[in-house]
Structures are given as structure tokens and as C-alpha cells.
């Protein structure tokens, strides 16, 4: 059996990859994908520790996370769509009419 720490490290690594993606990508869709990575990092933990603790709470919650991630993507794509219509671009750094 793989020790639990490894799962934690894997999840943390995936989470950080997602985070770095968010920090470096300017494309809104890539931004969204990075968020998905972060959410799935959490799912790794849930599934792994569901197994570890011997209850299904984690697994079930993993399903919820996926469903919510999907809903989030749906909303996100809608917003990115109107972003494109208004700013002719999906570069998230272009929309800066409001600041300070």
C-alpha cells in the first residue's frame, strides 16, 4: 500500500501546478483548466483518504466536487463568452476598465 504522505504530496504537486498555471496563463480558458487541476488535486486527497479512513465520505464528496466543477465551468464559459463579445479577446488581463 502506498503511504498516505505520497498522496498528499501528489495532491499538493497537482494543486501547485494548477496554481502556477493560474499565475502565468493569461488565456481565460487555460485559467479555467488550471482551476480544474486544483479542484482535482483535492479529489485525489478525498479518494485517497476515503480509502485510508475506510469510509465513503471522501469518495462521495469527490463526486460532488466534480459536479460543482462542471457547473463552475459552465458558468465560466458563459462569462468568457460575453468577455469575448465585449473585449474581442479572452485574455484576462485585457479587461481593466476598473481599477484602484
Amino acid at each position, binding site marked *: 500500500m502506498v503511504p*498516505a504522505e505520497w498522496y*498528499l504530496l501528489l*495532491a499538493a504537486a497537482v*494543486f501547485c501546478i*494548477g*496554481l502556477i498555471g*493560474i499565475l502565468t496563463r493569461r488565456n*481565460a480558458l487555460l*485559467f*479555467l483548466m488550471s*482551476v480544474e487541476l*486544483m*479542484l482535482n*488535486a*483535492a*479529489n*485525489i*486527497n*478525498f479518494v*485517497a*483518504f476515503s480509502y*485510508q*479512513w475506510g*469510509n465513503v*465520505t*471522501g469518495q*462521495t*464528496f469527490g463526486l*460532488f*466536487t466534480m459536479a*460543482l466543477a462542471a*457547473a*463552475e465551468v459552465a*458558468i*465560466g464559459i*458563459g*462569462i*468568457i463568452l*460575453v*468577455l469575448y*463579445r*465585449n*473585449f474581442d479577446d479572452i485574455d*484576462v488581463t485585457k*479587461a*481593466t*476598465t*476598473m*481599477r484602484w
Partner: protein
Amino acid sequence: MLLQSQLPNSLALAPVLVLALTALLLLVVDSIDPDSTNSAALAGISVVGALTSLGFAGWFLSAGTGQVSTGGGISLYGEALVVDGMALFFMAIFASVTAMVAIGSYDYLRGKPHQAEFYTLVMFAATGMGLMAAANSLATAFVALELASLPSYALVAFLKKNRGSVEAGLKYFLIGAVSSAVFVFGISLVYAATGSMVFSDVAEALNGTEFVGVAGLGVLMIAGGFAFKTASVPFHFWAPEAYEGAPAPISAFLSSASKAAGFAVAFRVFTEAFALSAIPAGIDWVLLFQILAVVTMTLGNFAAATQENVKRMLAYSSIGHAGYALIGLAALSAGSAQNGNVMGASMAHLLVYGFMNTGAFLFIALTEHWDIGRRFEDFNGLGSQAPVACAAMTVFMFSLAGLPPFGGFFSKYFLFAGAIGAGFWWLAAVGAVNSALSLFYYSRVVKAIWIEDPSGEFQITSKPIGLYAAVMIAALGTLVLLPGFGPVIEMAQTAATALFA
């Protein structure tokens, strides 16, 4: 005992269920006739739904449902949800704000497409907020938080042709997505450390856990998720733009109800799951909230002081108020008898804030309806044109600043007094200094409205009944809370004390 003898326990959630049903009903109505622009019917359904929800919450509160006097919180669905005094108190706040926003939106949305969707999303978001207040497990907390957030993203970007609205929606969504990822990762870490998500089990498992580091990381990241919802530093960056760009009623909705919902769930999580009596010494979340409270109120107020745009000023001031409300979590100490008072005062502040801040944003909605600009100068001399609404705005501003004799004064007074009573006089001192600073920028609005000469001609041709009514209700709420503040603070502090029992 009233409720227990008359209704099944599952109906304790009635305030939330009513909101959800209203949302579905709106969808059905829109499905029947998608092309209808009968906004009065839609707004009417929403208002009735919100008021029914408020009625249930008020009834349950007065009947003592879920409170200590009738045997404590009612837990439902395998302890996933719990209905107690605090949950009902916050549900009342959400329902009130929702009702005001729905009334105000009737005029604001006139002639715009997709009205049914607007109201549906508002009702769904309100449902989510109600569930947040009742969540008794990290899983429901997350789901409810998302249920509140997702419609909010869409609502902020509701004006599809308005660049500000879209930009606001984008920023809100992106920061929100990151925050919820952080939040859910925090949950996964806490789950990794404890093996459970139900608050009481989490607390039990945390007591003497060996995974302090993992749990600590998790607690911190969960706090981050709440910081996003409450617009607290360092997760506040979305707030100024989202509030400024969003349709004004939605700004009101988010900055009042959504913020309160964040606090509602934060209060419960940190008193039940991460209770001070159970948490390992290495996880000092009180210190975390002390830092966040001070930084948040200072940053919010300082940034608000230099704004030129009234709506944006209100947005920053909303961040400042999140800082005040954070005192409810920051001025706690293990086993202190004052804990309930401090947190109760924070809840009461959120209630008063729900009225005065909603009112202020709805006034902005009114000016947007009139196509008056958003800067301070644009408001010059407005008092002579619309004295009633401007008088209400004056009440909101002074109440937000915490001047006696308005509701905001009492809630702040009890909050700071509670902090001092709990031994955190320096928190109260920072709060008081910030309140003094806030008077500066709030009074700028009042000065512009009443004292300055008009810089241009106003084209005020209409008196939108809905918006006026909503502003007046908010003003009335702010004022009625003067004589009614005694019972409110008592109720809030009783409900909060029950959490620490």
C-alpha cells in the same frame, strides 16, 4: 416548543425551501411563456417568496425553534444540516435583503431581457446562502457556498452588453474559482487529518490529533475560502470591481447577504468544527482572524477614503465592514464567557449592515436609473431634486459611519464593547479609529447631496416606485432597529452563546 408540536422537524428548513421553490417556480413560469416581459409578475413572485421565507424565519425565531429553550438545534439529513437560532437569524437577514433587492430590481430591470433568469438566480443564490447558514458539515458548507457563488457570478455579469458588468463578472468568477479550489483543498486536508466532515466529528478527531500540520494547512485554506466569501484580505480583490461593475441591486445583494452568509458559515465552522476547546495549540486561528480583521478594516477604509466613485467607495467600505464583523471571530478566547456576546454583536452588526448597505446600493441603483454619474461631484445638489431618497441615503451613510442615533451606531457599539469586554481593547481601538476615518468619506456623500451646488441639470423625469419602496424599506429598517435593537442583540447573543455551549 411551538414548532415541534405543530410541524415535522424537516420543515425547520422552510425558510430555505421556500426560496428554492420560488426559484423553481420562476423557471416554470418562464418555461411556460419565455417571451413574456411581464416583469411585475416575476418580481412579485420573488418578493412573495422572499417575504414568505422571512415570515417563516421570523416565526421560527419567535417560537424558539432550534434554540436552547426548546432543546437545541434541529439536525437534519444525517447531521448534514442543522437549524438553530443562528441559522434562522441569518436566514432572516438573507430573506430581508432578497426581498429588498427583488423590489428594487423591478424598476432597475425595466426593458431588459432575461428578467426571469435574473430573479431565478437571485433566489438560487439566496437558497445557497440559507444553506450556508444551516450547514453542519464541510461537504454541505462547500456545496452551499458554491450554490450561492455560481448564480452570483452570472448575476454580476448580467448586463451582457456592459463592459463593466462583464469585467466584474470575469474577475469575480476567476478569483472565486481559485478561492473555491483553495477552499475545497483545505477541506480535503482536514478530511485527511480527521476522516470526517461533520463538524462535531471533526472537532472530536482534531482533539489531540497527530496531524497538526495537515489540519493546520486545511484550517487556513478553509479560512481563505470564507475570506473570499466575506471579501476579507487577502481574498478581497474581486470585491471593488465586482461591486462597482455589477448591476447595483446585485452589488447590494452580494455585499450584504453574500457577505453575511460567509460569516454565518464561518461562525459555525470555527466554533463547532475547529472549536477553541478542541483545536490543537498549534492552530491559532484566533490570531489569524485578528490579523485579518485589523488588515481588512484598515485596508478597506483607507482605500475607500480616496475614491472618486461613490459605488466603488461603497465597495471598499464594504470590505471595511467585513473587518468589523471579523471581530466576532477575532475577539474569542477559549472558555471565555464573553465569546457569545462578541459573536452575537457581530451577527447583529451584519443584520443592521444588511439594511443600511442594501439601502445605500439601492440608492445607487436609483441614480443609475436616472443616469446620473457615479462620481461624488455628480451627486452635487441632488438633495433638492429627490429629497426623500436623499434623506434615506443620509441615514444610510451616517448609520454606516456608526453615528448615533442610527442602527449602525448600536451594532458597532456592542461589537466594540464586546471586544473590550473580552479583553481585546486594541481591536476595538483599531475599529474606532477606522470608524472615525470612515466618517470622512461617508460624509462626503452627504455633503455632495445636500450642501454642494448642482454642477449640471438633472434629468429626473421618473420616480420609480419599486426602487423608492426598496430604499424606504431599507431606511425604515435602519431606523426601526433603533428602538428594536434590544431584542435583536439579545436574540443574536443568545444564538451565538448556544454555539459555544
